[in-house]
């Protein structure tokens, strides 16, 4: 069966006064129906921009898709007209963004906002839409749904607003739900509830999910496949257990090692990734992580490594690296 989504050689750039920002470079991956893909990366890694550019949501100019194809459900989204994209967004691909405060319209009731895609995409009548809105609010765990539907965003707490955002995201039963840092602005206790809700929804309606975050812990609990991005490229991707327990990219390894993991004060120093995030206005040459990678070779600096299957690992585990992380770590252990 063909995958639900296939991203081929996607490259996105922004033309700014201080130069061209190479935000996404040659990104390729596939997503199967029902799969949950966790994309991790820091700001500037291209994780959000690549998702937005797939559905024509980056401002053009300054942004532009330089090259690539995004085959979704048999069609190349990058070749669709704005009118056709309107039909895709919200209906076939749902979105949940980071900030539930600014993504909701403060002067419209929750009902109006959830009903909007339903009425537009399915031509529902007001009463049909209302019934569906109440059903959705119940699905995302908002009690007293019929009354709450008539309220305004300011009457909801941050966690409840994010539930409303998820209700909008799934309102048209999209084949794919893209959540971009959807729990980052929330308190940990609320985040835990939202993550539970998403797991629950996957069980109930089987949505395919792309969950974009910088939090390795969130991905560990939610994703089937994890994709680590840096400097606009995929550094590593694969089944979540394989990548977390046997990372092959020095960036993934460094990120995991720099977290405290329940460590206590004074026991040991945190491993720190040296240096600073890359300057994306420079022409991307070589492995973007090379300047910060203690294991980088001359080749890493000159030539971009392709994303290939990791040796002796789980099927689907891929890495873009010229160096052999396992050998380097073994050597380090011998020296220590």
């Amino acid at each position: 069966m063909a995958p639900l989504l296939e991203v081929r050689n996607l490259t996105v750039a922004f033309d700014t006064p201080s130069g061209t920002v190479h935000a996404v470079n040659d990104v390729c991956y596939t997503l199967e129906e029902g799969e949950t893909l966790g994309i991790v990366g820091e700001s500037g890694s291209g994780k959000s921009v690549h998702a937005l550019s797939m559905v024509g949501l980056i401002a053009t100019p300054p942004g532009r898709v330089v090259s690539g194809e995004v085959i979704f459900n048999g069609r190349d989204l990058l070749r669709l007209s704005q009118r056709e994209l309107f039909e895709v967004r919200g209906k076939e691909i749902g979105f949940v963004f980071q900030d539930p405060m600014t993504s909701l319209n403060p002067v419209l009731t929750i009902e109006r906002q959830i009903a909007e895609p339903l009425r537009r995409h399915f031509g529902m009548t007001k009463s049909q839409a209302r019934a569906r809105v109440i059903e959705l609010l119940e699905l995302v765990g908002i009690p007293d749904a019929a009354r709450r539907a008539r309220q305004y965003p300011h009457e909801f707490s941050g966690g409840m607003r994010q539930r409303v955002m998820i209700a909008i995201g799934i309102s048209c039963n999209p084949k794919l739900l893209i959540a971009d840092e959807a729990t980052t602005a929330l308190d940990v206790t609320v985040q835990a509830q939202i993550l539970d809700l998403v797991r629950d929804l996957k069980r109930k309606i089987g949505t395919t999910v792309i969950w974009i975050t910088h939090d390795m812990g969130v991905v560990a609990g939610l994703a089937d496949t994890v994709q680590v991005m840096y400097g606009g490229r995929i550094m590593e991707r694969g089944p979540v257990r394989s990548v977390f327990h046997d990372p092959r990219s020095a960036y993934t390894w460094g990120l995991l090692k720099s977290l405290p993991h329940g460590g206590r004060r004074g026991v040991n120093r945190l491993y720190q990734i040296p240096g600073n995030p890359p300057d994306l206005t420079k022409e991307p040459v070589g492995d973007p992580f090379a300047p910060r990678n203690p294991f980088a070779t001359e080749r890493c600096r000159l030539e971009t490594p392709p994303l290939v299957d990791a040796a002796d690992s789980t099927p689907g585990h891929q890495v873009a690296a010229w160096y052999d992380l396992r050998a380097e770590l073994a050597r380090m252990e011998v020296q220590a």
Partner: protein
Amino acid sequence: MTEPHATPLVSVNRLCKTYGGEGRLFGGRTVALKAVNNVSFDIAAGETLGLVGESGSGKSTTGRVLLQLEAPTSGDILFRNKNITGLSKAMLKPYRRDMQIIFQDPYASLNPRMTVGEFVAEPLDVHGLAGARSERQDRVASLFKKVGLDPSFMKRYPHEFSGGQRQRVNIARAIALNPAFIVADEPITALDVSIQAQIVNLFQDLQDELGLTYLFIAHDLSMIRYLCHRVAVMLRGRIVEIGPCEAIFENPQHPYTKALLSAIPVPDPDIERNRRPIAFDVNANLSPEEASLRAVGDRHFVLGG
């Protein structure tokens, strides 16, 4: 690492900060919000006290009131056993040298029109400690080195720096006057993940080197555990639990602390998939106004009966 001294450097007694509650123009009163409600704690010299809680719990307000950036509604703040509450600006100035703050947003807290060197030197000028030009230059250069920045960056402007470097600049400014006490208000939250460990290590190194005392405000509990000697958990303006880090993490007593700890995502799929967060309903679990902290272990206190 040296163990913190037993004598408190900073003491907070029954601190309250209420917003609103003023009389309205046409009668009645606005709703009073107790942002900080009867909060008391000590911080020993050389100690790091972590302050955690959800947004709106009053943790940042506590930090700001503690430094007299805002006047408390009631309660006392003692610094080296001297009550500094309600002192005039002039009287407070010598204490300002000893107490500094580092904010969350390293972008917003720098002046875009000032070179970072000038920005770091500013507190020296304000307190008349800059000395001769070359002396001032040397002092700033050594501060830059101390926080891991190349002194040749002194002439540059904030926009030329990444988030992690900017936070280093803020830290350099905060330690410029050799303070004893620093309030760090979510200092790593806005930083990239690959930079957070650098800044956490810097905080520890500076404490070891300069004997600094920290109030570390954060919502990332795993970093709190790593960095702090003791932790205070705030909920709706009150401290609901306070104690040594290990006691709080290994043996949490208050239902809110339990819920908070159970909600931390763990970067390990095997653990994370089996984690069951404990639900917590704030409104059903608020302690009565008259509840007080009671001891449940060595230096470990919980609110309520």
